[in-house]
């Protein structure tokens, strides 16, 4: 049996597309980590809620897919800020991730994850729901060698790039973005710059959760939407963030893409039934040989 170069290319293309989605969620995890020094363990649930918000908006309310995407991002951002304001703030005020309060924060995140899953069961039910989106206006891409990329994948790639470019612009070229970076580097000095630090932390949470929601709505048409979808996504996004270098935003994206490719190649050439293992295999390899992650430069500057 000869080696089929075209199918390898196809696996890589699909790997990149799904990887970019992991990257978007990882971006949110990294944002929160650099802002608060905590790992937000309920982030997978934000992704799940985002997917459900998108589903409800698209199916029950009947708005077009792009509007559902933006709506879901806004709703989830509000949910995230609410959770931060009501539950996390007392703990984050008591100190960052390296204090006793930081430990409490991790447990609080797990608890929030369970609470949100149960809330989702209550509101959305236990069935997996297909996300039928009308994407006829998106062109199907055909690569040489008869590789067909479905509309939902093309859309995912386009929107992900737009989101990343938007986030990059916001962080690098706006005054508020500068303030967010200042808070991420050092909160005490940010206070002395006259920055309203708690407000910026809310904003970080809102942004991160909005990004997770976008990932949820993008994944929706590829897979189905169900309450338990958040857990696996959290783990893979976490792997992506670590592979890329925790706290580094470009690292999160590249880590996500690497996880996506690795996973698809593993599923294709080793065993498809163990698809979800490969992300963690990559994670373990990276932790063994390059614990700071592949692009963990910014994290070092911070310390």
């Amino acid at each position: 049996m000869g080696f089929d170069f075209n199918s390898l290319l196809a696996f890589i293309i699909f790997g990149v597309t799904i990887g970019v989605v992991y990257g978007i969620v990882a971006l949110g995890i990294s944002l929160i980590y650099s802002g608060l020094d905590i790992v937000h363990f309920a982030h997978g649930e934000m992704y799940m809620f985002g997917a459900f918000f998108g589903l409800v908006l698209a199916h029950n309310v009947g708005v077009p897919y792009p509007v559902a995407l933006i709506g879901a991002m806004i709703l989830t951002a509000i949910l995230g800020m609410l959770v931060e304001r009501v539950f996390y703030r007392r703990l984050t005020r008591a100190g960052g991730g390296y204090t006793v309060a930081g430990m409490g924060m991790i447990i609080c995140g797990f608890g929030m994850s369970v609470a949100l899953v149960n809330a989702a069961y209550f509101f959305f039910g236990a069935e997996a729901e297909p996300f039928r989106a009308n994407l006829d206006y998106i062109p199907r891409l055909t690569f040489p060698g008869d590789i067909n990329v479905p509309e939902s994948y093309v859309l995912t790639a386009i929107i992900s790039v737009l989101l990343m470019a938007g986030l990059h612009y916001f962080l690098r070229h706006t005054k508020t973005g500068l303030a967010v970076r200042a808070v991420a580097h050092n909160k005490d000095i940010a206070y002395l710059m006259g920055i309203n630090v708690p407000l910026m932390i809310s904003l970080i949470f809102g942004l991160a959760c909005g990004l997770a929601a976008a990932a949820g709505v993008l994944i929706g048409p590829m897979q189905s939407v169900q309450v338990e979808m958040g857990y696996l996504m959290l783990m893979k996004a976490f792997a992506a963030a670590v592979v890329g270098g925790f706290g580094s935003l470009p690292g999160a994206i590249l880590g996500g893409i690497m996880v996506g490719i690795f996973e698809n190649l593993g599923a294709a050439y080793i065993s498809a039934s163990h698809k979800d293992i490969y992300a963690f295999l990559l994670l373990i390899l990276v932790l063994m040989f390059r614990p700071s992650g592949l692009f963990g430069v910014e994290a070092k500057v911070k310390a």
Partner: protein
Amino acid sequence: MLEIKGVHAGYGNLKILRGIDMQVPSGGIVTLLGGNGTGKSTLLKAISGLIPLMEGEIIFDGVSVSKLKPHERMRLGLVQVTQAKEAYPAMTVEENLVLGAYTRKDREATKADLQKVYDFFPVLRERRKQLSGTLSGGEVQMLVIGRGLMASPKMLMLDEPSAALAPKVVLEIFANINRIAKSGVTVLVVEQNVRMALILAQYGYIIRDGVIMMKGEAKKLISDPAVKESFLGGSVSDTTKALRN
């Protein structure tokens, strides 16, 4: 300009400042002196609002600021210059300066002030696209002072501007602080370098164990035997002799 009345403050249950009274008159340079762990930094934090007061009151420009948050105090013109090590190393010089003007809404005046800061510290203009982590110690000190000026302060508080700098650079920095005061900004300098600070300032406070131990005109303090004994530690030639032996 700034009046501190019977201030008690600290961290959690730990009280560091035990009844501080201090005045900084408009337009002058006042220095607060003391060694490590005497409460200098705590007092600065209390004035800028990073820690709450347990007792007492702080009045700035005729307004009680005791209950205001740090960014609100800053908008009134009460600006703290951070220690030099607290520039943002992963940001460029210009980003650091822009951040200093974060609370300001007057864009045109801010832009003009950025140019003024560059005129004041030409080396910062040369290095404006460089990450501030790549600057020398003296340059970073100029950067944090410039960052303070960007907030258009009525009063500037400096936290150990001479720390970890070569004597020649310290002279340059202190000359700049003098220029800033001449331009009409009230200055409070917190220092360990007692001799330099007393030459620069008109009035001095000496803090120890969270209380003001001594205060007076800088000229008098510098020749006061008690100050000489505990801080100045003999003349320069004595120190040189001691080093050679």
